[in-house]
């Protein structure tokens, strides 16, 4: 029997693991991301001569329920036609029986990398675009359930794509919902009801909670002065422990952030009189400066006339 060196064993391992796309119009390139259920590769669509992202199940012998989950994921994505959600082009089965689906290849940077040096208002605009995509999914009856900075890509023109709908579920119930007690999601971003596996209690407000955590993440680079209190209050309201205490929808959360950007009072934060003056001063800074400049000029002119 032929001697296999450690390098040969490692290489053969990758060979055995690498999906065979024989019989499909795709050519496999390098892996892009690897998850618990599937791996995403860059691939070439020979028919259309373009690069795509191809997600394939990890194991030829998947655990029970995994095939259904991945098929659901592809179908959910196919239903969500929105500029902020990665479109699905194809769904199929490899010669070894593994399910795969093909998506648009996303070019850009992850939210955490893309916003590291961006000013606050730019980060908040990005956040609003994430909210738009998630609100659209909710309107279609889908909850994402794993929103976090790693699952958002920001393109070169500031466009936002929400990725990884692997644990998303139909709000109305797909008939294949996982049993009570199943915990899927990311600690720190999932609400208490999701962490406890209370799957029947999970609705849009689970994503509101996660988006609150994403907003908190976007504010974390505000330095020593800290984020504005109104924004901190919006985060806290979105991340309330009980779903009834959160914003009832993602649109409501986005509207709060929009109010902040427009220097309007936000519902989550009752401001004091001084804060009100400061906010109004910030809001009307340009006209106030013009008036001040005008008054100053008049004063100077009056003084000059006296001399």
């Amino acid at each position, binding site marked *: *029997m*032929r*001697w*296999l*060196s*450690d*390098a*040969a*064993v*490692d*290489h*053969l*391992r*990758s*060979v*055995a*693991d*690498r999906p*065979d*796309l*024989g019989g499909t119009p795709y050519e496999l390139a390098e892996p892009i991301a*690897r998850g*618990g259920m599937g*791996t995403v590769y860059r691939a070439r669509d020979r028919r259309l001569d373009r690069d795509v992202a191809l997600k394939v199940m*990890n*194991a*030829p*012998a998947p*655990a029970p329920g995994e095939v259904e989950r991945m098929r659901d994921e592809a179908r959910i994505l196919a239903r969500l036609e929105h500029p902020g959600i990665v479109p699905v082009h194809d769904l199929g089965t490899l*010669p*070894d029986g593994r399910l795969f689906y093909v998506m648009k290849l996303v070019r850009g940077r992850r939210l955490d990398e893309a916003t590291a040096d961006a000013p606050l208002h730019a980060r908040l605009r990005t956040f609003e675009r994430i909210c738009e995509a998630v609100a659209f999914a909710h309107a279609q009856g889908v909850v994402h359930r794993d929103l976090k900075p790693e699952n958002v890509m920001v393109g070169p023109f500031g466009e936002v794509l929400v990725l990884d709908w692997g644990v998303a579920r139909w709000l109305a119930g797909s008939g294949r919902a996982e049993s009570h007690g199943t915990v899927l999601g990311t600690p720190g971003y999932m609400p208490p009801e999701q962490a406890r596996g209370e799957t029947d209690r999970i609705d849009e407000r689970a994503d509101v909670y996660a988006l609150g955590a994403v907003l908190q993440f976007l504010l974390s680079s505000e330095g020593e002065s800290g984020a504005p209190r109104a924004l901190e209050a919006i985060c806290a309201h979105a991340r309330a422990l009980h779903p009834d205490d959160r914003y009832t929808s993602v649109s409501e959360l986005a509207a709060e952030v929009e109010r902040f950007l427009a220097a309007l009072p936000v519902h989550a934060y009752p401001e004091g009189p001084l804060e009100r003056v400061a906010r109004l001063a910030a809001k009307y800074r340009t006209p106030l400066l013009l008036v001040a400049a005008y008054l100053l000029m008049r004063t100077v002119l009056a003084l000059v006339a006296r001399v």
Partner: protein
Amino acid sequence: MVQAVGSPDPETRRRAFEALVAAYWKPVYKYLRLKWRASEADAEDLTQGFFARALEKGFFDRFDPGRARFRTYLRACLDGFVANERKSAHRFKRGGGAEHVGLDFAGAEAELGRQGAPAGGDMEEYFHREWVRSLFGRAVEALRRRCAEAGKRVPFALFERYDLDGSDAARRPSYAELAREMGLPETQVTNHLAWARREFRRLVLETLEEATGSEEEFRAEARRLLGIDPP
């Protein structure tokens, strides 16, 4: 396959046992040489003796998939067997009716010479690594036989050049070089390679299924072996 070792049908029992010996003898031999510091002759005797005793005493019939992986269980049985053998200072006699012919001990010894001792001295990891090496080696041999039987000389030659000789990326030829070498269009090179790799993957899983103790263990090992789930 492990469960078939306890089958009431002697033929099923024999085939299952032979498959187990084929999957595990080499890791067992190397483990005995390194962990138990057995001499070559002792390691050969102990390897033969261990499998003979396992068959005789039904070691593997008592395996409970709910408690451990089969590989772990087998290693525990082996450690117990060697400790007993040494205590009673009783060497298992060779040729006692249960000797397995065709075990290439000289080949295993040559491999040991090339490999040296495991880094860090972690014998569990070492046993696992050897088990994977043996499994892949058997799958490569099965692929060689399958290609010879099916008249698929070219796909195996390509697999050998690209995936076995070229396992070191620096020495791996390009598809274009292979195409020139074999006088084939490049698309045929990739098609043949894809076929060989598909067969190889199937044979790895087939070999793995023989060497694991339950459907669940097979699934878990398939994932671990293919580098997907963390150990």
